[in-house]
C-alpha cells in the first residue's frame, strides 16, 4: 500500500520555470496555489501579477489573473474587490513594485482598509531589470546602481514596509515570513492561508504577508548562501513575525 503524501496543486501549472535557480518566487507561487486548493476558492480567486520577475506569475498559477502596470496592483485590486466583494483578490508584488513606484497605491489601499491580500515578495533588489538598488536594499549591499554598497546617507535606509503599513488602522493583518527552511516555509503558508481566510470570512481590512525571499543571482551568492543571508542578515533589518492582527 502506498499513500499519496505530496502532489502538484490544481492551481499550479506543471511547466518549466523561468525563475533563476534558488529564486524564492517558485516556492511562493506554490504556497499560494496550495492555499487556494485547500480553501477550495479557485473558482472565486483573482490574482494580480506585478511588473518585475513575477510579471509572468499567470504562467504558473492556474487561476484567473491580470497583469498590471508597475506598482499599481493595490489600486487594481481595489477596483476588483469593490465590484467582486465575494471574490478573493490578491496582489503579488515585489519590493521595487510595492515599496518604490507603488508606494502611494499600497499606502492608500491599506489606509482605506481594502479587503484584499498583498503577497509582498521582498528580495531587496530589482531582479527583472538586472539587480538595481531597491528601497529595501540592505545597508552596504552592492547593487548595479549602488556599486559601492548602499550608503544610507545618500540612498536612505531600507524601507520597512510591513512596519510602516502596520500602524494604519485600515491594515488588520500583517505578518513577515521567510522562505528559508521547511519550518519558515510552513509559517509562510500558514500566514497566506490566514490572510485568504480573512477575506473568505468577510473580515474587514487590508492583509499583507511579506516574504523575505532569496535572489541568488543578483546577491551574487549560491542558493544555500542566499538563504543563510536571509536568516543571518536580512532578518536583522526585517524581523520576522506578526506585526498586526
Amino acid at each position: 500500500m502506498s499513500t499519496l503524501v505530496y502532489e502538484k496543486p490544481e492551481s499550479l501549472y506543471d511547466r518549466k520555470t523561468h525563475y533563476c535557480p534558488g529564486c524564492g518566487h517558485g516556492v511562493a507561487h506554490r504556497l499560494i496555489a496550495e492555499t487556494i486548493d485547500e480553501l477550495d476558492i479557485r473558482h472565486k480567486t483573482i490574482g494580480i501579477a506585478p511588473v518585475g520577475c513575477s510579471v509572468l506569475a499567470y504562467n504558473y498559477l492556474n487561476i484567473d489573473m491580470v497583469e498590471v502596470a508597475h506598482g499599481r496592483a493595490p489600486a487594481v485590486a481595489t477596483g476588483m474587490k469593490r465590484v467582486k466583494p465575494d471574490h478573493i483578490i490578491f496582489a503579488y508584488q515585489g519590493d521595487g513594485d510595492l515599496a518604490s513606484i507603488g508606494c502611494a497605491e499600497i499606502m492608500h489601499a491599506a489606509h482605506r482598509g481594502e479587503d484584499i491580500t498583498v503577497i509582498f515578495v521582498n528580495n531587496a533588489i530589482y531582479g527583472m531589470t538586472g539587480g538595481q538598488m531597491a528601497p529595501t536594499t540592505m545597508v552596504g549591499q552592492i547593487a548595479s546602481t549602488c556599486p559601492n554598497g548602499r550608503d544610507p546617507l545618500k540612498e536612505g535606509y531600507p524601507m520597512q514596509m510591513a512596519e510602516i503599513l502596520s500602524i494604519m488602522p485600515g491594515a488588520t493583518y500583517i505578518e513577515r515570513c521567510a522562505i528559508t527552511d521547511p519550518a519558515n516555509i510552513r509559517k509562510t503558508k500558514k500566514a497566506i492561508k490566514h490572510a485568504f481566510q480573512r477575506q473568505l470570512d468577510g473580515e474587514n481590512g487590508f492583509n499583507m504577508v511579506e516574504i523575505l525571499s532569496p535572489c541568488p543571482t543578483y546577491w551574487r551568492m549560491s542558493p544555500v548562501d542566499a538563504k543563510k543571508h536571509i536568516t543571518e542578515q536580512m532578518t536583522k533589518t526585517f524581523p520576522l513575525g506578526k506585526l498586526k492582527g
Partner: protein
Amino acid sequence: MSEKVLMCGNEAVAEAAIQAGLDAFFGYPITPQNEIPEYMSRRMPEEGRVFVQSESEIAAINMVYGAAATGARAMTSSSSPGISLKQEGISYLAGSQLPAVIVNMMRGGPGLGNIEPSQSDYFQATRGGGHGDYYHIALAGNSVQEMADLMYDAFDLADKYRGPVMVIGDGILAQMIEPVDVFAKKRPPIQTDKSWALGNLKDRSPNIVNSLFLGDNVLENHNLRLQAKYQIIRDTEVRFEATDTEDADLIVVAYGIASRIASSAIRKARKKGLKVGLFRPITLWPFPAKPIAALAGQGRKFLAVELSYGQMVEDVRLAVNGASPVDFYGRAGGSVPTVEAVLEKIEENLK
C-alpha cells in the same frame, strides 16, 4: 422621466453614466470636473454601486482597470493635468482590450495651466495619448444635453470594441447649466461577449487579462489585431454634424464649445449674405476625414476654430489634402474666441 431639468454638464454626465449602467466610479478631485465625483459620491451608493475617491488619478485609472477586468462598467473623470497622469492606465486598457469610459473636462495648459476652459488636449485625445500604437474613440458634445447623450454611446462603444472611450468636454460644458433630459437616450446596455472577464472560474480554463506579449511576432500580431479593430472603427463609427454646408463658400470646422461660438458667428454672417456652413466633428477620433474631403474643392474654403493654438486644424488639413485653403483661428490658455472675432475671420476669408 422625460422632463427637462436644469443641470450643469458635470452633473448631467454623471447621472447619464449611472443611467447607462455604470457599476463603479473612481475619481480624484481636479477643477473644473469636481461635480462629477461629488455627484457620484452621493448617487452611486444610493444605487448600491461603487464609488471610490482614489489617492491619485493614476490610482483611479488603475481601479477602473481592475473593475473593468471583471467585466464591470467602470469610469473615471478628470481634467487635463489629471488626464496626463491617467495616460499610463489608458495605454494599458488599450493594450489589454478592456472597456472603460474616461471623461476629460479640458482646462488650460501646459503644466498646471489654469482652470479655465480649453481644447488643448486634442492631440493627446486623438493620438492615443500614452505609449504604444493605439487609438481610443473620442466623443465631443457641444451642449449639456449632448454630453449626457454621449455617455450612453461611450459605454456601448467601449463594450463593443473592448477598449477605452474618452468623452471630451471643457470648462464651459462642465460648468454651464442648461435644460437637459438625461434619460433621453436611455436604453439597455448592448450585450457583448464578456467571456474574457475575470472571476467565477467554472468550466473553463483561466482567463488572463494582459498587455505583455513576449516571443517572436507575438506582440506584432497583437498590434495587428488592434489595428484591424481601429480600421473597423474608422470605417463605421465616424460621427459629425454638417449644417448649411451644401451651398457654403466657407465651412467653419469646430467641435465642442467652439462650435457654439462658431454657429453664432455663422448666423450673423448668413444675415450679411455670406454663404457659411458649420462642420462639427462629434467623433474627434475617428476624425470625419472622408466627409470633409468630400466637401473640399469646388472653390470652397475652410476655417478651423478651436480653443487651442491649432490642433484639430491639422486633421482638417490632412482631410482636405490641399484641395481647399484651410485657415485657423483660435485662442487658448483659458481665453475663449469671441463671436465677433470669429465673424471677422469669416469675413476676411470671404473678401
